[in-house]
């Protein structure tokens, strides 16, 4: 009997060992915003991730599974985000971190990833220097200078006087600085600059100030979502368009998921960005179709949903390459060489040096297509474009 028992234990132990060798579960910690006034942006990331997992979740080597763990950071709330990230790393032992709408949150999380050696794939937070804070950070979204700088150069050819209005936090400051640099270097004149508190929802006073200054155009950046709609409505209500002021900015101000709520005030708004739901690439068409099938015919994916899709694709690529056995340093090496010629936003790749995204930047105009507002892509202003800010601010 004793012999039997010990054999049984041995068999059990052996099968457990074999089991763990064949069934690899890769844990992915996803941090996004599910509560508070900015839950709309977080919802975009959530939808993008879940759509990818639903459609491609099984495209893994045999025996490898992915277990996503979704957590709420409650908005631009760095200490909550940091605590959630720490719990995901220490308690759940995740092998990847991804998500994160807000730059302050990502900046708080980045040092943790350096200490814990957990690859952190940022799916939105755009503050340009976050990848420099940790060797384990890579970003698939964008930086503000990537869109604002070329827009500034382009705007100088069209508009003599521009007023800038940006959200008062790091990405806003970066958008402002990059636009002004591009614009002034090309000979434009800035007539005024305003910074709007991040939590603000009433844009009337700021837009009135713009109207009084009588510029040819207003350059704006806001963190998308409901704020984009609020600012657009203020632009329309005060009739800035009729006063001859053109509304231009980064693609955040006409985010696709909010565009239908903005009304006709948005018609003619010019933006530079990396993604539009109206893009006519085949990869984008199938992405948008899948999105609509999953979430409803009337909903368009915004840039955050598209980027979340790409972030998951990058993670799956890295898992496949390593057959489910994740080594942090090898992972970062693979990420540095990641290329996707067929993303919904066109060809993308990770810059091996800065671990930031390289992508096309499109000039778009809001037009009516089949009765719906759409960010129609007019031209590619920059092809396979790196973050210009890192070129201007070389690491010492």
């Amino acid at each position, binding site marked *: 009997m004793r012999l039997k028992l010990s054999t049984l234990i041995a068999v059990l132990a052996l099968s457990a060992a074999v089991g763990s060798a064949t069934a690899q579960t890769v844990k992915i910690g996803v941090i996004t915003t599910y509560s508070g006034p900015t839950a709309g942006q977080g919802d975009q990331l959530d939808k993008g991730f879940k759509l990818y997992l639903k459609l491609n979740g099984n495209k893994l080597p045999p025996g490898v599974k992915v277990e996503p763990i979704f957590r709420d950071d409650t908005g631009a709330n760095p200490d909550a985000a940091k605590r959630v990230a720490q*719990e995901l790393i220490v308690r759940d032992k995740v092998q990847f971190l991804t998500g994160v709408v807000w730059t302050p949150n990502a900046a708080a999380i980045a040092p943790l990833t350096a200490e814990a050696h957990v690859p952190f794939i940022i799916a939105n937070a755009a503050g340009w220097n976050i990848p420099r804070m940790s060797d384990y950070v890579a970003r698939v979204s964008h930086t503000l200078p990537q869109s604002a700088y070329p827009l500034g150069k382009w705007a100088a050819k069209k508009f003599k006087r521009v007023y800038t209005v940006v959200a008062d936090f790091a990405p806003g400051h970066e958008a402002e600085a990059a636009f002004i640099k591009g614009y002034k270097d090309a000979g434009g004149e800035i007539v005024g600059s305003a910074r709007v508190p991040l939590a603000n929802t009433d844009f009337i006073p700021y837009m009135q100030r713009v109207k009084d200054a009588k510029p040819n155009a207003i350059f704006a950046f806001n963190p998308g979502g409901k704020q984009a709609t609020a600012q657009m409505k203020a632009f329309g209500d005060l009739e800035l368009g009729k006063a001859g002021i053109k509304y231009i900015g980064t693609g955040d101000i006409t985010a696709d998921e909010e565009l239908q709520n903005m009304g006709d005030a948005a018609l003619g708004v010019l933006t530079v960005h990396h993604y539009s739901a109206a893009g006519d690439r085949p990869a984008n068409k199938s992405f948008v179709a899948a999105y609509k099938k999953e979430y409803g015919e009337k909903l368009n994916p915004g840039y955050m949903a598209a980027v979340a899709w790409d972030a998951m694709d990058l993670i799956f690529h890295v898992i496949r390459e390593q057959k489910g056995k994740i080594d942090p340093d090898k992972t970062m090496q693979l990420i540095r060489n990641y290329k996707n010629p067929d993303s919904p936003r066109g060809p993308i790749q990770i810059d091996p040096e800065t671990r930031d995204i390289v992508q096309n930047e499109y000039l778009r105009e809001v037009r009516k297509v089949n009765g719906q507002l759409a960010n129609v892509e007019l031209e590619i202003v920059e092809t396979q474009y790196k973050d210009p800010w890192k070129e201007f601010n070389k690491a010492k």
Partner: protein
Amino acid sequence: MKHAGGYIADSRIRAIEWLPWAFALLCYYAAPSYLSLGSYILTMILFALSLDLILGYGGIITLGHSAYFGTGAYVAGIVAVRLTGEPLVGLLAGALAAGVLGLVTGMIILRTRGLALLMLTLAITSVCFEVANKATSLTGGADGLGGFSLLPILGLFRFDMFGKTAYLYCLAILFASWWLVRKLVYSPFGASLTGVRENNLRMHAVGAPVYQRLVASYTISATLAGLAGALLTQTTQFVGLNALGFQLSGELIVMLVLGGVGRIYGAFVGPLVYLVLQDYLAKRFPEYWYFGIGAMLVLVVLFARGGILGIIDAGILRLRRKS
């Protein structure tokens, strides 16, 4: 409502009062992967304790206690960035700054009572929030203040990734503060505070210096709140604007009410239950966890006005009657 403390009460520590500390130490060994949540809970307990002193004992209703918490948090952060990474210096500086702010603002707002007082506390928080939002060179504005590192505590204990040092550090500070609050509550000073809460006019009539007592308690409470804020900064090595937010003040009151007001240990039970539940719900239902929190609050307000400790009290009373 039953309140702990008072001049005539026996001030010796009862055996059951050691229970929270034994439990906290047990958690340190039993749940090593929950220590960062643990540190946060200990910090919030300290914050709730500071509120209990003025709300539960002094009867000062405030929606602005995060002003002092945030001040302590930011001062500790700024000290770490600009002066020294020595944690105890930052901790004292944070507490002191919050105490001074508490004294100055307390002297102004405690001349009023009721709704006017409530509005003024809100106003002070809003002003502090906007100052921190605008003084970006010092506070980092909406991006928050981070990127500083702390020296080992007393040159001996380094803050580690798993939060072991942070947890014990919070526990030690909380223990010292609890000792102080308990002494205060059981002193004549504490009794006079209770008197003010129960019958303000009568305290005036017996010649008690009501205003001075309130300002003193408010200052002490603000100091403790600042201490809690500084602890949060040091354990997370980050300060964000939320530390000064109105939402935090509201959440704090919810936690305290959940535990039970005016009995010291309500401040221990409330944050523990609230935050553990929040952690569980946020993990289990990341999209809808606020619903669970809301439902729990409705239940507590409808059926358990005295908070969780109130329920336990009622239970014990019923058992005694039966036997």
